[in-house]
């Protein structure tokens, strides 16, 4: 059974002329991590909220765990767990209060709730601050409280909408590891992120979404093939003309005084010799998801300011 099956899903918000999500069809396999990758405003949250029965679609259909998310929301809600984007814990309540009470609200008895709360707080390294009011915790710890609430619940499908925003690198890895545990137990996950490393690390399958449409989808390996070359060489721009480099493959100006050449392994030697002769610094690396993302979706400031794209 599919965890999520969306067909031509469209959302036009009230008072808006443009569709936030336009004819999106997505199939999410169960017991897998499916990632929606996209820039801010791409439509990720809109999709998640429709699947999680928090928002009604304008048209199209969406079923979640075999139930119609519009008409059978009640059944769906028994089986899902969510981390909303930019949620915040209640100021005066502690991590323990949040998770323990939430588990009981979701129907667990006290004993189960206590055990699960202990386990999840441990997993996310919140045990030490379990009795401290949320208002006295760092932003990252506050975010982890919401993640802990969602992960502790016994559900089949977990929605994580940008769950690691504001987390330090160690906390991010704790969340990743907890998410992988969830999958190992047979749970399904719909994740959204704009962090490439997160998508690359966790996803079984990725849909890149831009301006309300899916522009590419597949496994990380599939997506890397969107760029025909498999190697990327960054070389300082000084005195190099783009034409020379273009004989090796596609060239983009990263805008940071560096030209980036997408090419094949066979060209590494010749290109590096060229750079060495001219005494120019260069780096060689495989094509990453990052490159694919920028290739498909275009400029993002946070990514070094790509200013042009050549074929």
């Amino acid at each position, binding site marked *: 059974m599919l965890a999520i099956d969306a067909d031509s899903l469209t959302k036009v918000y009230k008072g808006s002329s443009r569709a936030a999500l336009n004819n999106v069809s997505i199939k999410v396999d169960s017991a897998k991590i499916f990632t929606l990758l996209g820039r801010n405003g791409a439509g990720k949250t809109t999709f998640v*909220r429709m699947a999680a029965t928090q928002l009604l679609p304008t048209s199209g259909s969406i079923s979640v765990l075999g139930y119609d998310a519009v008409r059978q*929301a*009640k059944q769906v*809600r028994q089986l899902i*767990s969510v981390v909303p984007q930019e949620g915040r814990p209640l100021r*005066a309540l502690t991590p323990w*209060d949040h998770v323990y*009470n939430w588990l009981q*609200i979701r129907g667990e008895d006290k004993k189960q709730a206590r055990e699960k709360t202990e386990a999840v707080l441990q997993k996310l390294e919140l045990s030490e601050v379990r009795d401290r009011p949320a208002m006295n915790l760092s932003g990252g710890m506050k975010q982890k409280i919401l993640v802990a609430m969602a992960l502790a619940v016994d559900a089949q499908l977990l929605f994580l909408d940008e769950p690691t925003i504001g987390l330090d690198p160690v906390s991010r890895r704790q969340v990743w590891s907890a998410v992988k545990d969830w999958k190992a137990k047979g749970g399904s996950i719909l994740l959204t992120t704009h962090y490439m490393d997160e998508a690359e690390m966790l996803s079984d399958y990725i849909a890149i979404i831009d301006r309300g449409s899916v522009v590419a989808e597949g496994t990380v390996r599939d997506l890397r093939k969107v760029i025909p070359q498999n190697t990327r060489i960054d070389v300082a721009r000084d005195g190099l003309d783009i034409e020379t480099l273009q004989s090796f493959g596609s060239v983009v100006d990263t805008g940071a005084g560096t030209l980036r050449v997408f090419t094949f392994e066979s060209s590494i030697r010749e290109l590096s010799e060229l750079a060495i002769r001219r005494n120019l610094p260069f780096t060689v690396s495989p094509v990453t998801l990052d490159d694919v993302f920028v290739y498909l979706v275009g400029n993002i400031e946070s990514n070094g300011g790509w200013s042009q794209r050549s074929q």
Partner: protein
Amino acid sequence: MVATKSITLPARQAFLIAYSTGILWLRRNPSSLVFTAISPFSLLFVLFVISNGQYVQFAVAGSLVMALVGYGLALGQDISFYKTEYKIQDVFVASPVSPLTYMMGLALSELMFGLPALTALAALVVYFGASLFNIPLLVATILLLWSSMSAMGFFLSSHMLHMRNATQVISFVNVILAVLPPVFYPIANLPEQLQYLSYAVPTTHASLMLQHSMGLPVPAGWSLEFGYAVQIAYLVGFVTLAKTRAIWRET
């Protein structure tokens, strides 16, 4: 088994919501109780001083009614806050908790914040003339108004989310329900047409019930049954609105 679970689980959920947002909150933030406990007494104090104590029974009835209206409206504000600021409502929507359970839980939580003031005001009602025999009437009046105002607050909040003038709407409703109608003063002070109009307002009846229980004279055309009927009608109406017209899943 299933049948009992379907009744007890929502009750437990509502209690746990009230426990988290009310009791736990208060336990960790006891000072916040001071403000909610004191504010209902401000008008009581003013009226008491102005009237040299003569008006005290009306002032007590009015303050109790106004406090209950206030808890309903505060529930509305809380809900807007939980939805837009904390996004915690999104977690509840995508869960088996029903909107009415969520509303009940938060309304109970308001009641806990209001408990000191309500207890004090109810004690004053008894002190100023209600016989112990009237205590069930007093409690029924408080519960009726509390539930209908909570349902109203819940309904209003879901429609006020994107309004920039939410605070004005709240003060407006407060004026319509607690200031203009004969809540703090005898209904007989109004011209006849306005008396009829004020019978359409649920808080008029709540105040009359309190006045009645303190042994004050009530108008000839009014009876307890009438008072109950109007208030129950409003309760049913507001709960129906909350159930069917309040925005839970967004459109």
